[in-house]
């Protein structure tokens, strides 16, 4: 059987999501055996950027260079996977959509033309995304089972339980009862409620669940 040709790429982001792939210490070599890593600029010297089956894309589009890379790679792959919260939702950089420009204008790079800022957005604002592996950072089990499924021609099934499921299963008390905010009920889990386990509110890094809420715009 021919191995799937895979690429791992990052645009604006912290590289943590790509590290989550590498942090599969126990099974990394097994995974690498199943696929052909055609490009991974973060850790590889030689990278062929043509004709991929899957590209795992970390990061969001924050400047024109990001956009150019993304559009070009999309044209060269059968499937595009958003890896992690920045690619999926735009994460921290895109939060500025919720505030006025005067609150962040002084933080923008203005002198360097080549990093001239554009409106920060998740990758699906620019290209078709076939699958999302959510999370800040994404969970390594989820990455592993996704790769396991695609190499075996199984349609991967996104995990869609709300964070509350895992939070209750971890026998936590509920932050809402202590008058703290928590987005757990409407956030897609899979993180094993790592934040609320430690008394921190869930800020929704894995995006909304698809449980059929009517979102108010």
């Amino acid at each position: 059987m021919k191995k799937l040709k895979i690429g791992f790429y990052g645009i604006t982001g912290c590289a943590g999501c790509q590290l989550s792939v590498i942090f599969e210490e126990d099974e990394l070599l097994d995974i690498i055996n199943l696929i052909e890593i055609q490009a991974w600029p973060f850790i590889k010297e030689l990278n062929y950027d043509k004709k991929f089956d899957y590209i795992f894309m970390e990061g969001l589009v924050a400047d024109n260079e990001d956009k150019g890379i993304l559009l070009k790679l999309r044209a060269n792959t059968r499937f595009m996977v958003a890896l992690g919260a920045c690619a999926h939702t735009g994460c921290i950089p895109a939060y500025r959509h919720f505030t006025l420009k005067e609150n962040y204008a002084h933080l923008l790079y203005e002198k360097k033309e080549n990093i001239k800022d554009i409106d920060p957005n998740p990758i699906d604002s620019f290209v078709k995304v076939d699958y999302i592996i959510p999370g800040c950072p994404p969970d390594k089990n989820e990455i592993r089972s996704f790769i396991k499924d695609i190499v075996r021609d199984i349609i991967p099934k996104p995990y869609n339980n709300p964070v509350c499921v895992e939070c209750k299963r971890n026998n936590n008390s509920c932050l809402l009862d202590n008058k703290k905010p928590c987005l757990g009920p409407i956030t897609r889990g899979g993180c094993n409620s790592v934040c609320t386990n430690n008394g921190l509110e869930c800020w929704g890094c894995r995006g909304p669940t698809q449980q059929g809420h009517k979102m108010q715009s």
Partner: protein
Amino acid sequence: MNLVVYILKKDVMYDFLLDIKNKFETYVPIKKDITRFKILDNPKDIDFSENSYFPVKEHFFRKKEVIFQFNGSNFLPVELKSKNKIFFGLRRCDLNAIKNQDFIFMKQHNDPYYTSQRKKAVLIGYHCTKALNKYCFCESMNLTDYYDLMLFDKTNYFLVDAKTEKGENLIRKYKKYFKKSNYKISDKDTYIKTRKINKKDISKFYDHKDWDKGINLCLSCSACTEMCPTCYCHEIHDNTEINNPRNAKRIRSWSSCQLKEFTSVAENHTFRDTKEARFKHRIYHQLQYFKERNKINLCTGCGRCITGCPTKIDWVKIINEMR
């Protein structure tokens, strides 16, 4: 109720617990941020002021367990390991919830995983003297006596009633802590006044508009079913080895009717696709459907699905107000 009851003095209770702790993994209610059943360390930590936030269900019906493995075409059973456990301080609603789960997993089905855990557990109740919080409604739920031992709190001492062989044996084995008494336990010891649910037959109300009061606040988060002592729904999946997909573990884990995926089948069809359908299903299963089939209410009125709900949907109040 037995003719002979026993007296266990409160200061003696501490010694009794320290003693059984040597032979049994002993779980007692301990209050930190919330009350949880924890392995006993210091008996003085026991706190009966509220019910445990979570039921003890997870000890018998495990959150996630490997039910067998296979290796090519070979079936590899798992070894069923369990410990002798004592649960000290279970409330009547939760004992009845265990009764319902025993019925489901041991009578209706012969579930070896549940049975292996449950068989070795001793259930010691602590009888409520009043409603524990504003949400519970056990008085309406036709609860029965289901325990190995039950403690009735009489301020300085407990009256102890034994219901089963297991309970009798425990008293016999630790008889130095117990004194016989000819007190007759009566309704005034066993009555618990709680709020009520004014209709348990809700078959005619399925399309009632008042359900919207709950549905509009429901987030489909499943906190309610996660906390419910009677919910028994689960999913089963195979976790295959990365190098050899013919080797796998078959895993059973909790699931919930509040999740879309619970009724999703091939071709992406979902039977209960809307939040409305899922919300009503939970209430109807707890009050109506299970009873129609099995003659008992599934719900025991503990109120946890309301306490634990992020938007505190009081479905009992909604039902009570339906005209």
